[in-house]
């Protein structure tokens, strides 16, 4: 206040005020310089360059040759990349719905005061802090057809014991099981937080009306938790489209990404890695990256359009 009054009185302090404004600008710019420079160099330039590279043929040793949309045409006629595209969709739509349904049920079971809730919460979230390549490794060991725990259990239950890791029609199912197992805790925590925000008075009112637990779940909990479901769905689908670690280890890890087994589970990100860094087809790999980006944008955009139909905001 004093400063403003002074500024009115004499022009000299007006000058110092201007100076202090310039000072604020200076520090403001200085503080954002690292992040702006960093993002410019490591994110914005690369994304622009990605689009350009997707229009070239480039093995990273010679200089890039501009070939227009040829890579894109190749993408849609190449069995390999189409297979990776289909695998990505198979993986995403095999993992996400089951994972979300299970985590809704878990969150609902935990949304009540009873013995052990915090213990369960901590336990179910544990895979989320665990290195994905280690998770993949132990599950690969458990899916081992002769020595693995999974088939031991199936044999005990007199169920068929498939050769999970060497049968091309089962390996993707194995990968999906691992992904559901490792992602369920995260979804559960978000959904549980959403459920705990629902006002208790609604449940009390329904108690008076004598509503059954199922009615309470389907008429109160489920509709009111849809914003959280929407969030979890969006994040999980994006994550599934970009998945790499578990599939990389299941496909052999290291150099061995060839053969029918790898083909049965290789997703687009694994394909980008393989084309770009093993086959050194950098231009083509960039095309795959752009297609993946477009796919993620489309699916996410579609979700935002469709949410009006089913997400319930209070």
């Amino acid at each position: 206040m004093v400063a403003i009054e002074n500024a009115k009185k004499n022009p000299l302090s007006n000058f110092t005020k201007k100076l202090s404004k310039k000072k604020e600008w200076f520090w403001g710019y200085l503080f954002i310089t690292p992040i702006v420079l960093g993002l410019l160099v490591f994110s914005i330039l690369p994304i622009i360059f990605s689009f350009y590279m997707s229009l070239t043929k480039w093995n990273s040793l010679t200089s890039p040759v501009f070939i227009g949309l040829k890579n894109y045409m190749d993408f849609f006629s190449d069995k390999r990349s189409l297979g990776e595209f289909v695998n990505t969709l198979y993986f995403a739509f095999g993992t996400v719905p089951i994972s979300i349904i299970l985590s809704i049920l878990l969150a609902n079971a935990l949304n009540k005061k009873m013995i052990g809730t915090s213990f369960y919460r901590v336990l179910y979230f544990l895979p989320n802090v665990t290195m994905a390549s280690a998770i993949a490794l132990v599950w690969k060991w458990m899916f081992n057809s002769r020595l693995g725990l999974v088939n031991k259990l199936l044999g005990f239950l007199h169920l068929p014991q498939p050769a999970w890791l060497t049968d091309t029609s089962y390996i993707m199912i194995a990968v999906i099981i691992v992904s559901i197992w490792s992602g369920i805790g995260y979804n559960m925590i978000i959904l549980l937080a959403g459920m705990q925000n629902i006002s208790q008075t609604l449940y009390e009112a329904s108690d008076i009306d004598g509503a059954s637990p199922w009615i309470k779940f389907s008429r109160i909990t489920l509709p009111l938790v849809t914003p959280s479901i929407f969030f979890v769905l969006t994040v999980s689908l994006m994550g599934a489209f970009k998945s790499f670690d578990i599939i990389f280890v299941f496909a052999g890890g290291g150099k061995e990404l060839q053969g029918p087994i790898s083909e049965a589970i290789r997703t687009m990100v694994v394909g980008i890695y393989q084309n770009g860094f093993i086959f050194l087809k950098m231009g083509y790999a960039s095309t795959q990256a752009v297609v993946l980006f477009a796919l993620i944008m489309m699916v996410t955009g579609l979700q935002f359009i469709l949410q009006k139909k089913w997400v319930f905001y209070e």
Partner: protein
Amino acid sequence: MNTTKKIDVSIFLKQIILIMGSVVMVIPFLWMILTSFKTLVETNHIPMIWLPSKFNFDNYFEVLDKLSFGKYYLNTIFITLSITLGQVFICSLAAYSFARLNFPGRNKIFFLLLCVLMIPSQMIIIPQYLLMVGFKWLNTYLALIIPNLPSAYGTFFLRQFFLTLPKELEDSAKIDGCSYFRTYWKIMLPLCSNALIAFTIFTVLWAWNDLLWPLIVTSKDSMRVLPVGIATLCGQYVTDYNLLMAASVMAILPMVVMYIFGQKYFISGIALTGIKA
């Protein structure tokens, strides 16, 4: 009477489901630990041997000695610390500036940052790799650390948090002649310690567990980190699962210990940030 009985039944059913789920969650970890103590003969024995005959750490020493796992460990610790300290500092400093200081073009620059949020990191690994080639950073710590320092999400999230703080504190600091950096360091940072802790935890987790980027920018064994070590070991030691499991236990242990001691920060942190670890 009737209703209480019903509730008991539903709680009983829920407990059974939750306990069965817990068993499914625990078994892989348990199996990992048990296998890591077995000898190769015990590991590949048919019928299955459940418990190792004795708990000795031979596999662990073998992994550390023969497979240069100790080096992977040190590398991982070093880059995790560097990324975390650097990222938290850079992002919080920028977040403070975006939230609290006025300068021309601020909102436009911030909008640009939001656009970066939309880019999946997997999409730009090829040009990023080429940058590393251009900088001659392949197989150096620089490649493992520097590109991971700027985080658009971290800046966005911390800015939202800074916006909620009262303005009066800064004004009084200004009158006292406190510099902008001091205001940020001494006043603003301590006020958002919850958000900072959450962000730090997830940065540590992410840096420790990231596989794809280190896989691409390192080829020398001496520059490898744990996730890459684990993923490539499984290609080399296809059948020695006792060794692979010992390596896995060592690789996940620090994060699991951190999680067990700081669980409440993890759980509330996700609700706060929505970060997918």
